[in-house]
């Protein structure tokens, strides 16, 4: 069964500093990988996704992520963090269902990002 590990529960960075959030996945085939962000009281918003092709994907809000098959990782990065980036970040892997099109997501436990001014 597929699984996702986000080893960092909490991360604190200073505004303007760079950020890397770690994500490791376990999946037998080529994974479909996603990063979502959740601000307090809000739903899960998609930051970026990887299906195939270029292993460095760009997302919204200046985020990017790199798929590394050899390390089973899909780490999220941002070169300069803004105070508004404080939120919870979830990595997810998608499982392809051959019939019915369910295609549900399996999420990691999330990383809570705090930004110090």
């Amino acid at each position, binding site marked *: 069964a597929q699984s996702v590990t986000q080893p960092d529960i909490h991360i604190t960075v200073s505004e303007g500093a760079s950020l890397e959030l770690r994500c490791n996945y376990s999946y037998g085939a080529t994974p479909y990988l996603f990063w979502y962000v959740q601000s307090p009281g809000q739903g899960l918003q*998609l930051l970026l*996704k990887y299906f195939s092709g270029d292993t460095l994907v760009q997302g919204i809000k200046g985020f990017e992520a790199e798929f590394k098959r050899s390390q089973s990782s899909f780490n999220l990065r941002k070169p300069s963090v803004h105070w508004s980036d404080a939120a919870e970040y*979830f990595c997810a892997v998608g499982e392809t269902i051959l019939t019915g*099109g369910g*295609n549900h*997501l399996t999420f990691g436990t999330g990383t809570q990002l705090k930004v110090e001014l």
Partner: protein
Amino acid sequence: EPEVTQTPSHQVTQMGQEVILRCVPISNHLYFYWYRQILGQKVEFLVSFYNNEISEKSEIFDDQFSVERPDGSNFTLKIRSTKLEDSAMYFCASRTSGSWDTQYFGPGTRLTVL
């Protein structure tokens, strides 16, 4: 920008009571999902729904749970007899027809079972 909406934002109920959580997916979407997140734990898949039937469900989605699309806009999750362990945030999501089109999530309903 269209968005998924959910009502209520917070529901408090007594153990053993039935609850219905409501979702209005994005209007041209065809696939619908429910996920839940118990406090401090990961977001977990419950069920997916397409063409007026369940297309996939997890082990969590037992006989106490049911889903329905009663009209062209709403998508509901019913828990027949709530248990304390059903207390969680419940998220609805929807997507269009492409296999890996983005799932758009609602803001969630926090269910508290007393």
